[in-house]
């Protein structure tokens, strides 16, 4: 009981990470205050841009916890999901918006409920394709390269998913 209480009082790894980041920023501010001052407007701008995605993501997590059973997650995104699972991961990665790190909590929750490791990796790889930014990619590099990159990204997301899954689960099974 005492050990359990002590474990509860101990800060979580996430909190330790935040404290380490805050400490690093404080030291940087003491050594090079300009570097921290320059970062403040960026911090506020990014925060202003991501909060709607953050809220959306937690609403999605609530809906997932409320309506979708682990059995359904396994059926749609588990080992038996086959092409359907790949399709959801590839399209989901392409249409999801906001920075990549906002999607980690949702993916962690889905993996806990039975999502394939390969599909989580494929989802993250497909975040390289952003439909809203395609016109700009075409502007900077031309239509040909944009099409080639988009197609290769979708194909290699599956390749990467399979490699990551083989490396992680192959290793775990040893």
């Amino acid at each position, binding site marked *: 009981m005492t050990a359990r209480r002590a474990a509860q009082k101990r800060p979580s790894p996430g909190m330790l990470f935040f404290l380490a980041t805050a400490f690093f920023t404080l030291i940087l501010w003491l050594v090079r205050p300009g570097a921290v001052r320059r970062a403040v407007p960026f911090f506020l701008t990014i925060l202003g841009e991501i909060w709607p995605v953050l809220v959306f993501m937690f609403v999605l997590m609530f809906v997932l916890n409320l309506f979708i059973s682990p059995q359904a997650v396994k059926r749609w995104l588990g080992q038996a999901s086959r092409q359907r699972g790949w399709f959801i991961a590839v399209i989901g990665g392409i249409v999801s918006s906001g920075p990549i790190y906002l999607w980690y909590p949702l993916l*962690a929750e889905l993996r806990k409920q039975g999502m394939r490791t390969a599909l989580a990796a494929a989802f993250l790889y497909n975040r390289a394709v952003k439909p809203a930014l395609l016109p700009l990619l075409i502007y900077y590099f031309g239509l040909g390269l944009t099409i080639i990159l988009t197609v290769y990204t979708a194909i290699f997301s599956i390749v990467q998913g399979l490699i990551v899954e083989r490396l992680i689960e192959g290793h775990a099974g040893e």
Partner: protein
Amino acid sequence: MPRTIHIALKKTGKALIQALPILAGVLTLVSLAVANIPKTWYARLFTNTPLDPVIGAAAGSVAAGNPLTSYIIGGELLRRGVSLLAVIAFLMAWVTVGFVQLPAEAMFLGRRFAVTRNVTAFVLAIVVAMLSVLTMRLVGITPRITP
């Protein structure tokens, strides 16, 4: 309140409490990186040698921020004579490899997953760049260089 809603709220609330400090930490690191790595810094890294695709992927891996920024830098690198192979590796690594976000990814999805995913994404950034350049040559497409 029905029990199922209460349970779902509790689970989501717990996930939120666990996620917020990590996301705040990543946001701080990303802001520091974006604000303090000047766009012109990347051009200095390239050497016009066969190592450039690896340098491109490495530079893209440590960079953080909106992909749009990578397009602007990539366009600038092409104008300065950096090879298309290196620029594509840079663009791919920018969006698929996250050195700054690695601690957060490891905390949420596991250290082994995060490291394996980022290492393979780094290698694949170079592979995709090579295949893209090869395909462009085969199809006869020349890259557009913005004025």
